[in-house]
């Protein structure tokens, strides 16, 4: 018996959901829902238990980086990509979030999807997603990570387009995949460059080598900077950052559990994970760090502004996700990787909860997603209300909810940021704080519109009902996590101990992050925390005033700010811009210039022209061969005249002809 059996057989953790997916996909069509449930929940549940056991063994082994090569997948020349898994502190966080939250969402989905067609198909895809996501976080090299990376993109495509009869759903799935591919284009080039520079794509070897290299100077496009920017391009696609965020709001076409699991808690954070995983490279590329911070900060603010005016409950949450992901990148960009991962984790709890609760609302409302046709639901679906309020308090950053701690450490790091100078740090902090204000506003707007005020729907037609227990139980667990999930950092805030979360991640990020907060930094932290909480309170108060106290003012305000309002409502017309600048020209050029122009008229025209020319010549020559003796005589004479003419009148011609005869 090996000492650490689960670590030695770590591949079982991702393989279980794959088996579940295969079994349900191949045989589930004929099975009742109950068996499909057992397979899907059983495989992910076992996978979660396996992950827990692996993590326990990891702790037992003294938290030594675990790295195991299972088999070689691709090899050519000096390139090797193996099915190699690894486990370090960062993996521990990710794998527990993925399997834990994933398992809860599987349970929830058995209730939410109970009356949908293609039940087995849904769980087959969902398990497939778990497989790829686990590969992504357990991979020990970039190529295997890319397997998970593309694989979760595929699962996302399948699940967004789950209702494939709806054109908008299949459009959204396709859009997600293609936009992600644009990011993957960069990601691949990043891998190629890293391989060129370091001769390996294995994390341990690559980072060890990279660590000994001199860093790129600020503003200098060296290997590190370019490689990091290319990797970040992939991250922008997967984690829906500017300018590649456009797919995520559309992805809300998928069933709500999918939005919770893939498009909030796990897959979309993969970009943050990759940046954090590559922190050694990024630490060598200050310019790239600055870009990450700026893109993150801008996206956080930009997406939050769109979220202000959306009326579809899931769309609000989608833009909120984009915005919060921006927060995580902001953290990574200012070098606070553990703060970014901390927020990734707390966000996974409260955003999954928000989506699941929203799903419960939609379920209760019989499919209605427009918040303008809701209202006053708090009494009818009390549990959903309570849990959703918990998550809202968490995302808005009120103590002692989880989001408070993670958001606070991001804002603190941003404030102290040194990349690109002090002023850049202050500007980024400004973006972060403004985002916090907007976040509190739109989240409380959502709460007030949905749960408070008078019902704005026909109560005789819609029979509001609380969701079944298999949906409520995951809500409760996530609500608990949304409260306590941030407490690991509480001692640092209270001054009674270290930030246990970042201390845990210290072995991973220790080399690039400054040591724990000093006493004077702590007073700054408390000050900033108070500022942040006051800002959030302000946002919530404005929402209260506009949507509960003086609802009649809302329309007036929208009218008086019409241009700004409709710009936000139409999401800054970015989709329209992309369609007009990229998609339509590309299709037009492909059709008219390349296909009908170059291919049919140009190349094929020339080829067929040659063929017709040859036919015409043949035709002409054929007429010469008439069988008429007199016409032959004429040709003989003409030929003789030509020969004589050439010999006598063409310069050097005679010589040539005589030469030919000889």
């Amino acid at each position: 018996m090996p000492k650490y059996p689960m670590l030695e057989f770590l591949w079982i953790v991702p393989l279980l959901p794959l088996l579940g997916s295969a079994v349900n996909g191949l045989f589930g069509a004929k099975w009742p829902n109950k068996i499909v449930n057992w397979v899907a929940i059983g495989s992910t549940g076992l996978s979660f238990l396996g992950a827990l056991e692996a993590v326990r063994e990891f702790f037992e082994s003294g938290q030594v980086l675990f790295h195991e090569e299972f088999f070689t997948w691709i090899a050519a020349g000096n390139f090797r990509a193996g099915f190699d898994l690894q486990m370090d502190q960062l993996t521990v966080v990710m794998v527990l979030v993925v399997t834990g939250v994933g398992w809860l969402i599987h349970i929830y989905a058995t209730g939410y999807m109970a009356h949908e067609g293609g039940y087995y198909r849904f769980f087959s895809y969902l398990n497939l997603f778990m497989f790829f996501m686990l590969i992504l976080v357990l991979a020990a090299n970039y190529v295997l990570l890319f397997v998970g990376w593309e694989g979760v993109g595929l699962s996302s495509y399948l699940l967004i387009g789950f209702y494939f009869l709806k054109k908008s759903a299949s459009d959204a799935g396709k859009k997600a995949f293609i936009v992600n591919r644009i990011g993957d284009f960069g990601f691949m080039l990043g891998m190629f460059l890293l391989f060129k520079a370091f001769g390996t794509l294995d994390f341990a070897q690559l980072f060890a080598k990279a660590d000994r290299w001199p860093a790129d100077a600020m503003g200098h496009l060296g290997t590190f900077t370019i490689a990091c920017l290319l990797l970040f391009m992939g991250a922008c696609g997967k984690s829906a950052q500017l300018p590649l965020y456009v797919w995520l709001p559309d992805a809300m076409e998928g069933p709500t559990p999918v939005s919770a699991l893939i498009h909030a808690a796990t897959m979309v954070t993969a970009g943050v994970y990759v940046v954090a995983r590559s922190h050694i490279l990024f630490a060598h590329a200050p310019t790239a760090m600055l870009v990450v911070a700026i893109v993150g900060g801008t996206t956080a603010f930009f997406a939050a502004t769109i979220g202000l005016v959306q009326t579809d409950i899931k769309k609000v949450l989608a833009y909120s996700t984009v915005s919060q992901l921006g927060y995580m990148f902001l953290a990574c960009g200012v070098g606070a990787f553990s703060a970014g991962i901390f927020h990734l984790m707390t966000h996974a709890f409260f955003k999954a909860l928000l989506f699941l609760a929203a799903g419960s609302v939609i379920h209760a409302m019989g499919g209605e997603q427009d918040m303008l046709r809701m209202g006053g639901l708090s009494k009818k679906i009390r549990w959903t209300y309570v849990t959703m309020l918990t998550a809202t308090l968490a995302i808005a950053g009120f103590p002692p909810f989880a989001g408070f701690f993670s958001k606070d450490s991001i804002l603190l790091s941003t404030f102290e940021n040194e990349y690109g100078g002090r002023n850049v740090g202050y500007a980024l902090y400004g973006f972060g704080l403004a985002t916090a204000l907007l976040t509190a506003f739109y989240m409380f707007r959502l709460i007030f519109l949905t749960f408070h005020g008078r019902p704005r729907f026909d109560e005789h037609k819609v029979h509001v009902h609380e969701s079944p227990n298999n949906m409520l139980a995951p809500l409760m667990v996530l609500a608990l996590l949304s409260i306590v999930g941030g407490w690991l950092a509480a001692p640092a805030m209270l001054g009674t101990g270290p930030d246990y979360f970042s201390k845990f991640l210290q072995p991973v990020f220790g080399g690039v992050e400054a040591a724990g907060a000093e006493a004077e930094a702590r007073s700054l932290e408390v000050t900033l925390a108070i500022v942040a909480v006051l800002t959030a309170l302000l946002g919530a108060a404005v929402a209260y005033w506009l949507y509960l106290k003086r609802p009649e003012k809302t329309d007036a305000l929208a009218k008086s700010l019409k241009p700004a309002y409709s710009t936000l409502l139409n999401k800054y017309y970015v989709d329209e811009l992309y369609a007009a600048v990229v998609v339509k020209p590309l299709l037009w050029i492909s059709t008219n210039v390349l296909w009908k122009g170059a291919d049919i008229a140009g190349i094929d025209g020339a080829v067929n022209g040659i063929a017709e020319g040859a036919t015409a010549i043949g035709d002409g020559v054929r007429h010469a061969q008439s069988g008429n003796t007199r016409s032959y005589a004429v040709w003989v004479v003409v030929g003789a005249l030509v020969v004589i003419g050439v010999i006598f009148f063409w310069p050097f011609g005679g010589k040539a002809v005589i030469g030919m005869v000889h």
Partner: protein
Amino acid sequence: MLHGGHLLSVLIFFPAVGALALLLLRGDDHKFIRIIALIVSLAEFLFSLLMIRAVPAGAAGYHLEEYAKWINQPPINYHLGVDGISLFLVILTTFLTPISILASWKSIAHRVKEFFVMLLMLEVGVVGVFLSLDLFLFFLFWEVMLIPMALLIGIWGHDRRVYAAVKFILYTMAGSIFMLIGIIWLYNATGTFDLPTIQTLLHTPASQGGLELAPRTETLLFLAFFLAFAIKVPLFPLHTWLPDAHVEAPTAGSVMLAGVLLKMGTYGMIRFCLPLFPEASRRAAGWVAALAIIGIIYGALVAMVQPNLKKLVAYSSVSHLGFVVLGIFAFHNISMQGAVYQMLAHGISTGALFLLVGMLYDRRHTFEISEYGGLATPMPKLAAFFLFVALSSLGLPMLNGFVGEYLVLLGTYQRHWGWASWAALGVIFSACYLLWSYQRVFFGEITREKNRALPDASAREKWILATMAVVTLWMGIGSTFITKRMAAAAQDVIDQVEPQRPYEAAAPSEFKRNVVKLNATPTQTEQDPARAAANIVARERLGIR
């Protein structure tokens, strides 16, 4: 007996014997004819697997060689051999032949006997091309293969079949004429048609009795061969025969055409252009790569806007084969292996795409995408297979398309990052055209009443598709089974082109650049201890004292 000296001859002529046997059969017992053809092709496939044992991993050069005098004057010899590259191309051929026969089980109803005879004769030609080591013999098989293919298109094709068949013949012949001239020139200069001999002579200095070509002559010879192969691939802008040939060909014809015939072109480049004319290849590399990259992007964009599903797949081949040519002309060990792998992967996944398109055609007798829509509802199984194959074609990791594409791009990037960056755009566009067409064919509500009651995949179709899917998955995961057997052969080709450059180590261009910088400013390094320490590391790595 088969383990002995004549396995390759058996592989070439066994299908011919089978074809002869078919000819003797009565023409009206279709079922019997089909079964015999299938048995012959399956036996051929099993025979071809025997080659694997004879080509050990890590061994370059030809194996299972056969040599016999055939014609004394001029000295044309029967010289066969297999190496790590041709090995899998032959197996791909022998694998796709029974698949094609099964695919034609129901859809070919007239002149059944002749059809299967042609299919087997096609196999004879293609296997012969891959195994010949004598230029004349190679040319012979190259031309032999043309006739059955043209007849398959011209007799069993669709409406414009004669036009497509003639276009196919003329295009290919136009190229092979030049190749013939090149072969005869080489014979005149060396007195032999034997490929290894000519290769040795060309790599020997004239002072030691070798043949040194003047740059101009070498370029002309290179072009003579290259043109024939480029048409076959087809390389942009010589590709316009392909969409017509594919659209008109019967399913089996398309499968064989895309699956293996196109590979004869890229195989020819690897086997002839690079080793025989290394200087000219190096000079031409930039141009060829440019055409390949144009082909990748152009093929994908044109595929994207095709209203005809089969044409779409045909143009996607132009795009995919562009990766192969790019990988070959990047002259990098990794990209070369990627190119060969991409040839095999494309054979499987595009072959499967044509099979699926053929199955749709069998049901609705049209290739127009607008005639379909919402097919996932009446035929979920076919839809699932189609998606699987489309994903492999767009290079999803863990499926076969990824390995080749990734290695080609990775290897190319090591030497020409610009080429690889442009070519990588193909990764985006392939997702566009495949997913978009998939959406229009399979997703949404049923738009045409006729499509509502279409039957899902039959048992025979499921077997065909499942086989293809298993191979797709296996090639995506167990790629080292193939790459370790072809690595030495690929390295050998690279050594022929650029013998002076070792590729075992990672191209350390970044190290070099740093070192140059460091050496240029020695004072600065002395001032900065951290930098100096880094320099020492970098120097040690490079072995510089």
